[in-house]
């Protein structure tokens, strides 16, 4: 079988090694790069990210990668954002004032409430394993990135902000934190975002990465 070619976008932030190792374990041929030509030459991109939204967007802009990613998106390249990389797919974030995102999925990034739905204080960041649930607008995950995943399968989350897509149909999966639904996977055409870390979520996480390589 031919190995799937994939580029992990390197903009100076995030634990790239873990993402690379996990994708290689799933059979991908991975190049970590910030070179526009490399990024535009592959059928699949992964945009990782750990840290603050504004810093990450500034690092992308400094390397002139925002436009390159948008260009790849318009060419139909499959793009998966992970954690902060998922949040960057949206229009803007409220983290430290308003910062513009890549605008590939309509919506914004907002803080997770420090109060749960019953009014109790809850711990933020949301760290640990949480179950995926079907959003109101979805009845199953057939034919999507999450094919083969069951509601109730748990994934590893670490985040203080969350994506809030404008359109319900772009919510592919949620999780529930403090009684509130948090967007866990967003998808619009060739653009996909995972709030959790599939590379740190054990076998079910690898299942998602393998599926991404076959889309």
């Amino acid at each position, binding site marked *: 079988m031919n190995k799937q070619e994939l580029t992990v976008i390197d903009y100076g932030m995030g634990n790239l*090694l*873990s993402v690379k190792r996990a994708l290689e374990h799933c059979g991908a041929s991975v190049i970590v790069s910030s070179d526009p030509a490399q990024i535009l030459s592959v059928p699949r991109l992964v945009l990782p990210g750990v840290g603050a939204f504004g810093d990450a967007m500034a690092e992308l802009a400094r390397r002139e990668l925002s436009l390159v990613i948008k260009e790849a998106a318009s060419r139909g390249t499959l793009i998966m954002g992970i954690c902060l990389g998922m949040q960057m797919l949206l229009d803007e974030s409220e983290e430290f004032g308003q910062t513009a995102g890549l605008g590939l999925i309509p919506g914004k990034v907002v803080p997770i409430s420090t109060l749960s739905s019953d009014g109790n204080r809850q*711990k933020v960041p949301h*760290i640990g394993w*949480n179950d995926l649930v079907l959003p109101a607008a979805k009845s199953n995950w057939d034919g999507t990135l999450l094919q083969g995943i069951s509601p109730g399968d748990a994934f590893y989350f*670490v985040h203080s902000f969350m994506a809030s897509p404008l359109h319900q149909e772009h919510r592919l999966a949620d999780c529930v934190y403090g009684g509130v639904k948090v967007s866990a996977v967003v998808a619009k055409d060739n653009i996909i975002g995972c709030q959790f870390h599939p590379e740190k979520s054990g076998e079910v996480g690898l299942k998602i990465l393998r599926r991404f390589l076959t889309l």
Partner: protein
Amino acid sequence: MRKARLIARLDVKGPNLIKGIHLEGLRVIGSPNEHAVRYYEQGADELIYMDCVASLYGRNNLSDIVKSAAENVFIPITVGGGVRSVEDATHLLRCGADKVAVNTAAVANPALISEISRRFGSQCMVLSVEAKLVGEKKWEAYTDNGRERTGLDVVEWIKKGVSLGAGEVLLTSVDREGTRKGFDVSLMQAVTREVSVPVIASGGMGEASDLIAVVKEGYADAVAMADILHYKRASMRDIRSVALSADIEVRRYE
């Protein structure tokens, strides 16, 4: 309720997985990564690697072990022992660690907690505390694997560490460590009632049911296990099903 995390703790000396009693009298168990992979396959939620002689020699020796673990273990990895600077932390994170645990260097220089937390986020900065009972509900923080006194009260030190930016606490009871007598639940209670960040209970797990009290009464967010797994007294699966039957929410894993 958040899911309680079941963490396999691997204490390492040189190339070997080891285990002591009260963090001393170390015995060689075997290859760290063979054990790590087994715990991963059994459904461990996280791994903690501790270089137990790093502080003695002033350097962490785990880079290669962590690098090779990151090839076939796909869950969060915390690495501690001899992390003395932001550069040490950076290096371990580049090797595939997701979080670093700091004890000795944080006691010597508490600002290191803030520096690591600011650079990588508080979720990355685990404050490791070795606690010894010194009086009625009073514990003193120790460093260098329970060898060196600090004069610091455990609860006060942890409160300070959290205010400086520690995002999680690894709390090891030196008194219980390696003894199989169960966790020090009152130590956990004393700490969890004072801080809002997750606290990992470590030291003393003799049988699977020991986790029930430390989670339900001690409010531990996570349980670190070593001896019980290394000597195969219980598997991750057994431990998970004991937790579930006690109504403790844990990650489902078939």
